[in-house]
């Protein structure tokens, strides 16, 4: 017997009224806390501005991300990898033996899509490189660049040029890990220099951070693309 999948959503009743009241009270408490904050802000803005020349970067946000709080960013990459491992752990074993293919159709790419991709893909990759380079001194950076490249890869799947099989091969998996390993490796290489983990020497901080950003860009692009591929299934990535 076929049952509709969507569960019926509850109508407004006593439980909803109670939850709504509690959420409204929470909003009131938090708003009161926000209004009661002292007018003079307490922050780390001045401390960051003071030590900015040591970071090797001109953009304060990226200096915080990749130098002052580099450990956060390193763990953030680990979280992305964990999400990918978690996603793949949920796939049935048989899904791994499905040969690569494109879930849309086996037919050749449509000419108008190919024409669009010929314009969009080089421009987008150029924009990604620009974002990566810009990140040193202006808003931009590795994560933004990686996201643009992942979007290009998804476009190529929609244009039926890349296979959509989401578990990838050895190379995509290596690419997904490269950023984290490079980041952690450079962080560990600071130890023999008499510095702490991820405490880059100011003289060579900029080249180190650029290398790390290049690695992160690659890993973010591959990881987001594989995450967007969804849960591998026995039907080879077909939804």
């Amino acid at each position: 017997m076929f049952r509709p999948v969507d569960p019926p959503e509850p109508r407004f009743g006593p439980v909803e009224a109670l939850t709504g009241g509690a959420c409204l009270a929470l909003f009131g408490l938090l708003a009161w806390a926000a209004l009661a904050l002292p007018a003079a802000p307490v922050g780390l803005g001045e401390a960051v501005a003071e030590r900015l020349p040591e970071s090797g970067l001109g953009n304060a946000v990226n200096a915080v991300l990749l130098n002052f709080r580099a450990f956060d960013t390193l763990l953030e990459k680990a979280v992305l990898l964990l999400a990918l491992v978690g996603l793949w752990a949920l796939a049935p074993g048989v899904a791994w033996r499905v040969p690569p293919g494109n879930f849309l159709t086996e037919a050749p790419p449509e000419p108008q899509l190919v024409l669009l991709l010929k314009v969009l893909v080089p421009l987008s990759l150029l924009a990604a490189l620009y974002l990566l380079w810009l990140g040193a001194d202006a808003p931009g950076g590795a994560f933004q660049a990686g996201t643009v490249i992942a979007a290009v890869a998804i476009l190529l799947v929609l244009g039926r040029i890349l296979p959509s099989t989401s578990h990838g091969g050895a190379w995509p998996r290596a690419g997904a890990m490269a950023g984290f390993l490079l980041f952690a490796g450079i962080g560990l290489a600071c130890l023999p220099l008499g510095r702490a983990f991820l405490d880059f020497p100011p003289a060579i901080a900029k080249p180190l951070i650029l290398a790390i950003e290049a690695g992160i860009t690659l890993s973010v692009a591959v990881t987001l693309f594989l995450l967007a591929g969804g849960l591998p299934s026995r039907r080879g990535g077909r939804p």
Partner: protein
Amino acid sequence: MTQPLLYSLCGLALVALALHAFLTRRHLVRRIIALNVMGGGVFLVFGGMASRGGAVDPVPQALVITGIVVAVATTALALALALRLFRETGRIDLDEPNDSGAPDEPNPGAEAR
């Protein structure tokens, strides 16, 4: 009311609204969307609070970028869990089987997946 405060209060309102949706909705995708809206509210609070007093504090902004990445990872994993649940049981909510009186058999549409 200053502009940073307005952004912070809007962020807090989003958090409260999304929390209500997260607690009362049954459809798992609705709950995952509610979780994302709640995260967006928190990011808005961070952005608003960081810009109080003229100069913008870069540390909360950096934390928001990290938070966005973690939110993406969380959403991907949550959607995968919901999809697996649907493939196994044909259901997309967390209610106990049979409590709605419907027969507890997998959705035929889900078996082919």
